[in-house]
């Protein structure tokens, strides 16, 4: 079975502090991992995907197959980063996208 675990429901930091939102997954094959974000009063939208190996809005995420993790990181948090973040896994054997429970990031001035 495929599963995504986001252990933190809420992550509260001050502006300028580093941020790491944790994501661990369970999947026996080669997964594709994603981070989705939902800002206040906006639609849920794709933030980044691991196969692109890109940095979006200063965020990066590295797939660690040994630790089965895909943590989302940003060196200096901004207030506009406050949002709900979801980690998601696509397993080809299952042909569907599974989401974690989400982590709410609150960045304080």
């Amino acid at each position: 079975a495929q599963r995504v675990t986001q252990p933190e429901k809420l992550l509260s930091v001050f502006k300028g502090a580093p941020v790491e939102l944790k994501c661990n997954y369970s999947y026996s094959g080669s997964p594709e991992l994603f981070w989705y974000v939902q800002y206040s009063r906006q639609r849920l939208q794709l933030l980044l995907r691991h196969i692109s190996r890109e940095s979006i809005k200063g965020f990066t995420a590295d797939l660690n197959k040994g630790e089965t993790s895909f943590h989302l990181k940003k060196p200096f948090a901004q207030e506009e980063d406050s949002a709900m973040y979801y980690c998601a896994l696509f397993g080809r054997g299952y042909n569907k996208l599974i989401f974690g429970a989400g982590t709410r990031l609150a960045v304080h001035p």
Partner: protein
Amino acid sequence: SQTIHQWPATLVQPVGSPLSLECTVEGTSNPNLYWYRQAAGRGLQLLFYSVGIGQISSEVPQNLSASRPQDRQFILSSKKLLLSDSGFYLCAWSVGTGSSPLHFGNGTRLTVT
């Protein structure tokens, strides 16, 4: 450009009443369509997905059902709502392989009283 419409935005229904939520996509053909439910503390739960007309895969055996009468139309239904059906329902679409990014609608807030 592609757009997704989901309605109604909010809905309050009594227990035992029927439900019909509609989702339509414009600007693309043969999309993959999804219904998710967002419940407090439980994240996004995949309910149904469809890769073509009349093709529905159910992920959660409940009193909910889905139908795809047209290529770009996806309907979530229930014959008799339960209190536990309350939540935020999201429709989404993608194209191509299943790993393509999902594009979400604005959602429907359903409250069963």
